[in-house]
């Protein structure tokens, strides 16, 4: 039975649960864009897990700890059965996306991803600005256009920083 009220969104709590279970994953979606510097609000955590069997077992443990349940009401939490496993947890929304649009999944994204400290000992891998733009552009959704423009601008400003120019 889902809770009567929306749970408080606690991305750090979700990351800590994934970390405790030693899940290997990359953060994508709106939260990854925010972590990379875009100016937007988001309500959930989207991740691309490594699809190795052992990692999926660890993910299953974390999902149990988070009391994850599918938002479409179905019972199975098997990753890979659907394009996006859309979950509600006690700490907010969690989407598991084995192969995001325009990518070939974890192994494709990990090369350009960066690992960042988020406090409290939590360190996560975040998809690169270029890969986030690729995913957002491939989805082709009108509502994502402002985010896509911001990603392109973030990439330009990042390059300016890389060349030692003032922001």
């Amino acid at each position, binding site marked *: 039975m889902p809770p009567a009220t929306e749970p408080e*969104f606690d*991305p*750090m709590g979700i990351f800590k649960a994934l970390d405790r279970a030693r899940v290997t994953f990359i953060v994508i979606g709106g*939260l990854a864009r*925010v*972590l*990379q*510097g*875009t*100016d*937007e*609000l*988001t*309500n959930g955590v989207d991740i691309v897990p490594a699809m190795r069997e052992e990692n999926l077992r660890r993910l299953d443990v974390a999902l149990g700890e988070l009391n994850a349940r599918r938002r479409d009401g179905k019972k199975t939490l098997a990753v890979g059965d659907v394009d996006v496993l859309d979950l509600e947890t006690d700490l907010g929304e969690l989407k598991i996306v084995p192969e995001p649009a*325009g990518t070939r999944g974890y192994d494709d994204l990990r090369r*350009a991803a960066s690992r*960042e*400290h*988020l*406090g409290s000992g939590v360190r996560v891998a*975040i998809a*690169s*600005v*270029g890969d986030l*733009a*690729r995913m957002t*552009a491939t989805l082709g959704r009108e509502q994502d256009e402002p985010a896509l423009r*911001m990603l*392109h*601008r*973030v*990439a330009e*400003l*990042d*390059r300016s*920083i*890389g060349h030692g120019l003032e*922001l």
Partner: protein
Amino acid sequence: MLIREARLRAGLSQGELSERSGKDRAQIARWERDVVQPSFETLRELVRACGLDLAPALVPYDVDEEGETRLREKLLRSPQDRLQAMLEERRR
């Protein structure tokens, strides 16, 4: 971003694009990661090697000064600070 998109749309590996375009594979990887930028002519050569072409067009450029300032401020922060700022903004 355009090089990678063109290459993937053509179903080519970086090695195959290197062979087709005559450009170094490692350099293609750097361009794709946005580490460095190719010249416009090189970009067009690479895109054409994928069987596509660029169609440059002049479009209005409206600068959102307020948005630009916020973006620059955020880029000076750490990912940890960006996350905390977003969560605080959600609570308001």
